[in-house]
Each structure stands twice: as structure tokens, then as C-alpha cells.
């Protein structure tokens, strides 16, 4: 297979959402010393963009989107490791840390947001669910993201969003990062009240909000 063919196969594996296939192709790309940045741009990102568009147009559904995201995650781990090893630089739209706050186990909306952000060229670190404030703070210190996105579905955990912001202030880090909140329990008024920079009612609007905050739209 030529380089172009390999990358195009990788793109197809992302679109089809077949992790094992994508991992195999990513390994082969590394083995044949193909530029990993090109593989990410023309393979992974191009593939997930097709899926993101299909989802936005109503031609693809959540199971398609999520399986493609899983595939992207698996392949990108291999290619990112290669980039790190070779020390190549590349441009990204921005770095976003995502997580559902402590006490809340709701995952799906945040996962959709992570996928759409990746499709839009962001570097996304998804911490998962039930994340204590301390973990958000540590990760911000380490990763220096442009944006932190927090979600809460339960009214009983919405106050934890405020708690993270209070802790950020206490650490003197509030101005170092944009804070965007969302989830079933969050309204725009609540987001303003707790001093967040932005609010996304759903994943699509969340992407829009983050782009707006970073001056990309």
C-alpha cells in the first residue's frame, strides 16, 4: 500500500468506526515512517469530520459518532506517541479539558462534546465522570489548557461546578483558563451566577461557545 492509500484506509476506518482496524493501520504508518502529523490531519481528523458532518446532517446517529470517537482515540494514542517521540510540532485549535463533576456519573453528553471538539481540531483531554475539584486543578496546572469544560446533570451536583471555580480563584488560576459549563442541571443564568465564562445547552452549542471564546468564530 502507498502512503496515501494507508492514510485513506485510516480515514475510512474512522468513518466506519472499527478500532482494531485503525490501530493496525496506525501501527503500520509508524512502522513505515510516514509523517504522523499528516496521518492525523488527513486520516483521523478528515475521517472524524465526515462523521461529525453526517451527525449534524441527521444521516448518522449517536452509536456511529461514539464508535468513530473510540476508533479515533485508539489510533491517535499511537500516532501521538510517535509525534512525542520524534518531537514534531503541529498546530491545534486549542486544548480543552472535559469532565463531569464529583458526585455525578453522567457521561454521554460530555462524550459527544469531546468527539465534536476533536472533529473541530481541538486537543481534548476527557477526564471522565465523578471528577473532584482537586483533579481538575491538578490537570489544569499540568496541561495548561485554553478551556475547561465541566458538566453536571443532577441539580444536587450543580453546586460542585461553582466549587471548582471558587477553588480556581483560591489558587490564583482563574484567569489562566476559560471555564465553560453545561449539562441538564445548568442554565445560562446559573452559569453567569457562578462566574463561568461560557455555557453550552448541548454539545453542538458547546463547540460553538468554545470557538467563540477563543476567537475562532
Amino acid at each position, binding site marked *: 500500500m502507498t502512503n496515501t492509500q494507508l492514510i485513506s484506509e485510516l480515514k475510512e476506518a474512522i468513518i466506519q468506526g472499527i478500532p482494531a482496524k485503525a490501530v493496525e493501520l496506525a501501527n503500520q504508518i509508524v512502522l513505515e515512517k510516514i509523517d504522523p502529523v499528516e496521518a492525523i490531519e488527513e486520516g483521523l481528523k478528515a475521517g472524524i469530520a465526515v462523521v461529525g458532518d453526517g451527525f449534524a446532517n*441527521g444521516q448518522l*446517529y*449517536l*452509536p456511529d459518532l461514539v464508535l468513530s470517537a473510540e476508533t479515533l482515540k485508539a489510533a491517535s494514542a499511537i500516532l501521538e506517541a510517535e509525534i512525542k517521540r520524534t518531537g514534531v510540532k503541529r498546530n491545534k485549535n486549542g486544548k480543552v479539558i472535559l469532565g463531569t463533576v464529583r*458526585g455525578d*456519573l453522567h457521561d*454521554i*453528553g460530555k462524550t*459527544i462534546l469531546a468527539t465534536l471538539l476533536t472533529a473541530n481540531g481541538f486537543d481534548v483531554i476527557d477526564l471522565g465522570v465523578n471528577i473532584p475539584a482537586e483533579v481538575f486543578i491538578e490537570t489544569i496546572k499540568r496541561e495548561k489548557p485554553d478551556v475547561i469544560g465541566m458538566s453536571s446533570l*443532577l*441539580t*444536587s451536583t*450543580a*453546586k460542585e461546578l461553582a466549587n471548582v471555580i471558587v477553588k480556581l480563584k483560591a489558587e490564583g488560576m482563574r484567569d489562566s483558563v476559560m471555564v465553560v459549563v453545561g449539562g441538564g*442541571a445548568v442554565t445560562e443564568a446559573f452559569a453567569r451566577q457562578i462566574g463561568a465564562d461560557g455555557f453550552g445547552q*448541548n*454539545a453542538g452549542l458547546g463547540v460553538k461557545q468554545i470557538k467563540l471564546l477563543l476567537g475562532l468564530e
Partner: protein
Amino acid sequence: MSLEGFRCKNPYEILSKNEVEMIHQGSLEILSETGMTVDHEQSRKILEQGGCSVDHEKQLVKFPTDIVEWAIAQCPDSFFVRARNPDLTLHLGGEAIYFASFPGFTWLDPKTQIRRVATVEDCAKLVRLCDALPMVHTLCQPVAHLGDKPPEIELEWVHATELRNTDKTIMGTAFGGSSKWVVRMVEATDQQTLGGICISSPLVIPSDQAQGIIDYAVSGNPQMILSGPSKGATGPATMAGTLVLQNTEILGGIVLAQMANPGCGVLYTGYSTPMDMRYGTMASGAAEVGIMAVGTAQLARYYGMPSGVFYPMTDAKTPDPQAVFEKHLQTYLCATAGVNYIMPLGGLDNEGTHSPTQMVIDNEVCKMVGKVLEGIKVDREHLAIDLIKQVGPVPGNYLRTEHTRGHWQEEYLLSDVVVREEYNAWVLGGEKGILERAAEVAIHLMDTHEPNPLPPEADKELGKILLAAEKEKIGAVSGGAS
């Protein structure tokens, strides 16, 4: 003595006996091999002492089959939820069917049709509407969120407001440690509550819910143990798979409840809804929800436990045709399937909104579904053969007979809101449809209905409990008076 409600004598079934057995066996396999995460140390210790295998570091509990079967055998086949007013006590189980109100995060004010966050005063009016409507046999809090109280104690305030404005029974909660305070409040008002416990799918008993299971079991209050995996998201995409997971999670909760207090009353309760694969929202008005209710009732009967569902629900945002057809189909299926505890009244937008206008419409739906359950009374008097012979052919008619005057009321449903007058009368009356009429009735009842008052000493006690909750949960104290 207990509240009459309705009765379902020949429940509609969807699953065969063998299919029910397959679901049960699947759950036993998952409970013993995979187990559940129990995020609560005291509960894990109770489960460990009771014979479950516990990995405290991973917070994982595995439930041996003989333990699960022991717990099922402890559950009573019926139990009471004692009301302050004995005539309003629930007797859950057997053929009994009760309807309950449904909560919202916000409420849709019938005066303005604007959705907003409730204050304590709004909440009191919403509770009085529940108190006034006859089809609300029991309450789930109409709103779960108050704009004028700190979030840490809003549920405590909601429950106190319920107890102050109705003598019907209410559902308790466990979110944010509220179970401890609900238990104290119903003790102060001399009644029981039906505790509400939500398992997190897949396979997690969160810490506040585990605490709630213990609080309600130990205090002698019955509890509904709810599981609601979302088909395709937090549960398998298939209805059978989601039923297996729902059943597994309810049984896991039941084991903890029965170990905390053997023989305590548990309402086997489902709230599974499919996830919409385009929006990622819960498609709570879907037909599958009603179908799952039938399966839920069958499983509960198989175990010899009373059943409940945390719906009927709709995804409609306003009291509109979608709200009515989605909720009516589910209400009909739940009731004819023999679900003992059904929650059709007032909900919109999948728990997003509680609507007084919708409450009044749902009150009509419940009356109609109740009428279906009552069926046709057949005896010599009701067959009216002698009467038909006596009236004979036209010009005979039945309006002028004593038989009609004696029987029509027991056989008819009258309504203040359904449009039944003839066209010209409707035009002269201002061309009002069901929405306008229901809103008028709701506003009138919210503004004027007087509930059976809470004795002053109980009211005072509720104030003290609210102060104690506030002090313990947030340290500061703002006041607990009504």
C-alpha cells in the same frame, strides 16, 4: 382503612412465563458474576456481613444467588404507606392502582405560560393543586428545585412544603443526604413516606442512595427502589437487555434494603427510557416506555412484590397534543398491566417541567383510564332487561325513568374541562378549548383550595427540622418558618 384508588383484575401481559424466568436468571448471573459498585462503606459492610462478597478497594459487591433469593423472599407482597389522614393511606400491592403527581425541575405558570424556577410559595400552591385533584392519590414532589433556598437544603424545603399543604402521602428522596431529614419530618407529622431510591445505571448504588435505602428501611418507611437504564446508552439497545439490567439493579438494591431491615416494604420500580440516537436526550414519551412498564409489572408479580413506574412521561414542552397522546398511551398500558403505583400527573419535558394545566388534563386521563379498569358491571339490575321491555319501542325513551336517575351517576364521568357542549354553545362560551379550561381550573384551585391544615405543633417541629438540616448541611441558618 385505606384509599380506594382503582383495581386491575386481569392484568395485560407481554412476556411469557418462560421469558420472565429468563430475565430473572440473567439477573442472578450478573449479580453473582459481575456484581454492582456500592459507593458507601456502611452499606458494603452490611452486605458483606449478610454474605455478599465485597472488594472494598474497588467498592465492588457480588451477590450470591441464595442471598438474592433470600432477599426476594423477605419482601412483603403488599404494604401500607400511612397518611396523616387515615382515609388517604395507600395499600400498595395486589390489584390496587394508585396515581401520583410527577415532578419537574421548573414549572410552567398557567397564568403566564412561562416556565420558571419555583419559590417556596409557588411550591405550596402546586402542592395544594395536588391536594385538590381527586386523581392525585399520592404525591411525588411537584418541583425538585427551589430558587429561593440554598441548593443544599432545597429538597428538605420541598418536602416540608408538601407536608404543610397536603394530608395525602408523599414520596421521599435520598439525593444529597435528604433521606435522613425526610424520615424525621414524617415522624413529626405522624405519617409514613414512600422513600424514593435511584440506582445509577449501569450497576452502581451511589452513596446518598445507599444511605437512603438504610434510612428508609431502618425507620420503618417503605421505599421504592428505582432503576432506569436508558436503552442504548446506560443500558443495552434491546428492550429485553434493558429489562435484565433494570431487574438486576432493583434486586441489588433490594438485597441491601432487606439486610438493613428484613421484611421492609419495597416497591419494585422501573423508569427505563430509550435514548434518542439523534439528540442524546431521553425519549421519555416513547412507546417502549409503556411496553417496559408491562414487563416491570410482570417481573414484580413474579417476585410477589408491588410494582411502580416513574412515568408516564412526555418530551413535549407544553401541554399539547404530543403531551397528551404520549402520556395517555403510557398511562393506559401501565394501568391495564396492573402497575400498582403510576405517576401520570403534571409532568412535561421529561422531568424538566411541572405543569398545573397538564395536571388538570392528566386528571381527566386518569379518570378515563380508571373507568376502563372498572369495566362493565353486569347483574339483573344493570342488564335492565325488565326496563327495556317496559319502555318498549319509540316513542319510549330512558331519560324519564327512575332507573336512569338511579344509575347514571355511577356509570358516567363528568368533566369541567372536556369540551362536550354543542358548537353554538361553545362559540358563545368564548371558543375555549381544553388548554384554556384546564389552565382556568388549575389557577382557581391553586389560589383557593384550602388543605386539611397541619397541626400547629407539627408545623413548628418541621421548622425545627429544617433549621437543623440547614445547620448541619451548610452551617449558616436563615430560618425555618413556613
